[in-house]
């Protein structure tokens, strides 16, 4: 029997021909379902958007307040041209969703970006049974294995404390959306003054206005230099090697990313400390997720696509790699965070 292609790939999006809807399209389309609000998934210019309700604030901030946007709850079923859809938590960042599509008793799930570990801020990942699963593979090598979040948080706290003892400010860097709110929530209560880079401040305030439980963190830009004394500053990676950092002297820099698992990646960035904290699934989580879906066929998108699909095939899970625009390359996360909303 010929496999029914409920979803297809054209390089610029994941497309459902029967419903005529695109998932995370890079080109401008009539109808787009957005898995989450990171800029390599939520692109500007489509006529109608649909996303989880927790994505709304950021999507409007980034794509325009006046976009045509329909929001749904996790698990809420909706039909487009007779095709059955629902969104399910992906655990990647706030509002991130897997897209479940059902047609003729066949279920496909496009998972976007996801992680299995509960980060205690966004809604945790849920495994969805399906016939065909579309997975990311950002960290699809067995060298990427995350420690429990609490261990990393404890390390960060100890690092901040030590910096404070030495009279230094701690500049903690990572993605403005997702990583930072996760850090802020988990580092509470703070035992030092905290400040946020403008890009992070904007995201935080949008989320707070939308009713999310986040503390107010004052922006760096209005502060007198004297305020920065043993403080913790949340910043994006784009500030590295810029004069923006000068006002914090003396300071130490820390960087939160899954790429920090490898010494070379940390050393190359000339940062003082790398913390291995990712919003993507690690090797074990990818494998677990795939087994839990019970999928007979897996499509592997952005990341180590060829390696990970070969591995799955050898494990007896039929897999194929798919070229997408998400995360241009395996090193993408490092250069991509320059996004300033």
């Amino acid at each position, binding site marked *: 029997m010929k496999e029914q292609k409920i979803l297809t790939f054209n390089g610029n999006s994941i497309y459902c021909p029967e419903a005529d809807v695109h998932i995370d399209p890079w080109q401008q389309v009539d109808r787009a379902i957005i898995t989450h609000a990171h800029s390599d998934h939520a692109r500007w210019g489509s006529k109608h958007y649909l996303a989880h309700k927790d994505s709304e604030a950021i999507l409007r901030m980034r794509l325009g307040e006046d976009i045509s946007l329909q929001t749904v709850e996790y698990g809420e079923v909706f039909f487009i041209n007779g095709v059955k859809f629902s969104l399910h938590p992906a655990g990647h960042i706030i509002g991130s969703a897997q897209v479940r599509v059902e047609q003729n008793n066949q279920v496909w799930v496009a998972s976007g970006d996801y992680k299995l570990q509960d980060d205690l801020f966004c809604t945790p990942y849920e495994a969805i049974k399906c016939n065909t699963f579309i997975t990311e593979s950002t960290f699809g*090598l*067995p*060298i*990427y*294995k995350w*420690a429990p979040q609490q261990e990393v948080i404890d390390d960060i706290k100890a690092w901040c404390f030590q910096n404070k003892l030495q009279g230094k400010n701690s500049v903690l860097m990572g993605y403005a959306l997702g990583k930072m709110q996760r850090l802020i929530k988990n580092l509470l209560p703070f035992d030092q003054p905290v400040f946020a880079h403008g890009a992070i401040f904007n995201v935080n305030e949008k989320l707070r206005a939308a009713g999310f439980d986040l503390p107010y963190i004052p922006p760096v830009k209005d502060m007198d230099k004297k305020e920065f004394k043993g403080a913790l500053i949340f910043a994006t990676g784009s500030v590295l090697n810029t004069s923006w950092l000068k006002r914090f002297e003396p300071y130490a820099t820390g960087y939160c990313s899954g*790429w920090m*698992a*490898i*010494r*070379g*990646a940390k*050393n*190359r960035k*000339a940062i*003082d*400390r790398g913390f291995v904290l990712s919003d993507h699934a690690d090797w074990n989580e990818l494998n677990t997720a795939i087994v839990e879906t019970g999928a007979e066929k897996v499509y592997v998108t952005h990341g*180590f696509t060829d*390696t990970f699909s*070969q*591995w799955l095939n*050898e494990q007896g899970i039929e897999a194929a790699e798919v070229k997408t625009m998400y995360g241009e*390359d*395996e*090193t993408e996360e490092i*250069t991509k965070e320059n996004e300033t909303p």
Partner: protein
Amino acid sequence: MKRFTNLFLELDRTNKTNDKVALLKTYFLSTPDEDKLWALALFSGRRPSRKIKTAQIQEWAIEQAGIPMWLFRESYHSVGDLSETISLVLPTNISASDKSLSEWFTYFLQLTKASDEEKKELIVQAWKQLSTYEIFVFNKLLMGSFRIGVSQTLVIRAIGEISDQPAAVIAHRIMGDWDPYTSSYQELIYGENNADVTSKPYPFYLAYGLEGEIELLGKPEEWFAEWKWDGIRSQIIVRNNEIYIWSRGEELVTEKFPELELLKTQLPSGTVLDGEIVCYVNERPLPFNILQTRIGRKNVTKKILSEAPVIFMGYDVMEYEGQDIRSLPQEERRSILEKIIQQTDNKELIKTSPILIFKEWDELKTLHLQSRENAVEGFMIKRKTAAYLTGRKKGDWWKWKVDPLSVDAVLIYAQKGHGKRAELYTDYTFALWDEGKLISFAKAYSGLTDAEIREVDRFIKQNTLEKFGPVRTVKPQLVFEIGFEGINLSPRHKSGIAVRFPRILNWRKDKKVEEADTLENLRVILTQYK
């Protein structure tokens, strides 16, 4: 091992000298002597040799990790370091071993006589007790590949400060041949009963490259100028009628230069000279690669001795009549040196590096242009009042090298870097035109800024024509100016020519690929400078 692993991690996290010294001091103050000794051995490059075949370790690691070999290789390409890759793919454990650094080295001794099965058992059991980072360090020690971004000078400074002794004394004591399996920290650092005192070299004084114009050095009459020889910086020690030759890499190389052994009867006992060993025929140095081939050989044959005889080109003296005279001014040391060398009978074996005569800096500049014809690398400029210092110090000794030779070449292959640059394409192969084809001629790793590396990396990823394992064939489009120090015929290279110390001088964004140099251009340089 926990403590040593922590030290390693903490050192890895800072690039500030004072922090590193503080970390080292804390470690040396809080660690038993046996471990101090091992740490010192590791920091000073005295790594015990590899105990086990790399292939075996890999095989056991992938078995434990439950992954196929090809996936391990992919992982290795991303990490760029074998020990680290193994530590990352192995199942994650909680650190459960209290064995100290020295106890692990004792553990390694069991490997020498073990069968392959027993070896595997020993290694796998060790892995199971260690955390990821500990496994990384363990593997490095096991494979004899431990390296760390701490210079010996810093270690010397730290030990000097905690043992309340001058750094130069410590530097002197930890030089030379000692074995952490048999030596003791107390004896080594506090110097009691040092049996091998006769062979101990002094730490070399190293020059900085000249910054800016030569005139900035002040009055010409305050300075000596000598040719900068392109050989092996060495120290000859004659004490108790024995001769020891140390290379700058702190290797005892006496046996590599049997002809120089004669000097032990020529130089008075209690003499230590600093100079350059060069292959020298008809009053002219031979190219460095001849010397290099010679060193690479296990045995120095008669043929080698006749084709590539060496001499010692002396330029300084640290010990005379058994006295350390490093604090005397350069000028005085120079006259002592001349006196010593004059008294020898064999002028075929030892010479004083001549002092160049000049009154004005301009004369020296003219002379500098003749460096290549004289087969030297440029000048050494030394202040006449300079003492012989320890390590790389600014101010009194300067090297003034000739500008490198260069050609414009095309990037054709790229490979990912290792360690620090593991996920970027940083290792490049360059080619020159020859009858309408691009022929590879040199590999270069350095010379670009981080931003340029990223730009080239992006180009490579978007313009890959083919992949062969880790190597990518790149669309020939980017042109770089490649500088090099020496040039020679080489049947082993596709181009027939080998260049020495190739490096990227400039990214010639202004040049089209057709405008790159030809192999013929390189051949012309060869005939001019060989």
